[in-house]
């Protein structure tokens, strides 16, 4: 230690060299303990965007018309009867599941 001007017996005692500790597989254990890297953030963002786009395509173009989704939402909120609510709720659930599935896939550790 170069910070003290005078070294007495205690300084010499404390400054005795430390013994070398054998690796004995320690480094290997450390490397095995390191978790796998998550997929890069950029890739997750692309996955999320693409799946959101797919969900939008299904919602607005594949379904009968773009108005279908809005009609479904309004029917859910108007709620005239349980019989009529099944189809709009199902269609909304499909959209929600696709978006949630995209989020889950995006954060899934490969």
């Amino acid at each position, binding site marked *: 230690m170069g910070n003290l001007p005078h070294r007495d*017996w205690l*300084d010499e*005692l*404390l*400054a005795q060299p430390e013994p*070398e500790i054998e690796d004995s597989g320690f*480094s290997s254990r*450390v490397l095995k303990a*390191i978790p796998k890297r998550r997929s890069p953030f950029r890739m997750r963002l692309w996955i999320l965007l693409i799946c959101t786009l797919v969900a939008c395509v299904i919602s607005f173009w594949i379904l009968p018309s773009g108005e279908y989704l809005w009609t479904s939402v309004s029917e859910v909120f108007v709620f005239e009867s349980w019989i009529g609510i099944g189809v709009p709720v199902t269609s909304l659930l499909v959209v929600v599941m696709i978006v949630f599935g995209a989020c889950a896939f995006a954060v899934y550790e490969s």
Partner: protein
Amino acid sequence: MSDPTDAELIAQVLQDGNKDAFGGLVFRYQSPLRWLLRKLTCGDVALADDLAQDTFVRAFLHIKDFRGDARFSTWLYRIAYNAFLGEKRKNRKHVAPRTVENDFRESNPPNTLLQMDLEKALSSLHEAERAALLLAYSKDCSHQEIARVLDCPVGTVKTHILRGKEKLRSQLRGWEGKVEHG
């Protein structure tokens, strides 16, 4: 062909998460880090090795945070010290200094007994004092580096070292003349 420097190995890890490169760093620093943690944990080898492993894993996961303005070893020691403090807070373990039986004293050479008394005295210090002394003397760290490891001002580091030495001197008073004269 010379061994790669710490900076070269770190660059490889940063570039593509090269585990082999990080393994080189682990192999290089496992001995001094485990020794430091064994001293901090007052000789608990299993706990020290667990903390050392945890330290290296955290270092790998946060390698991007290493700015390169200090030695890699200093950065590792800081992670290790924080891991040690976290473990202490979690378990609130008080590690009692080891005692030495009288017959053990009679049958062992003075150097061994001196080392045991030194370890006993070190284990009685506050962890910050112990860490400051170990880093200053065994790791040859500057006061600034120790301040970075302990996350405290340089003045506090100096106080820890002075108080730690006073306590050691008091506890090892019986060895003073014997150590000086060999």
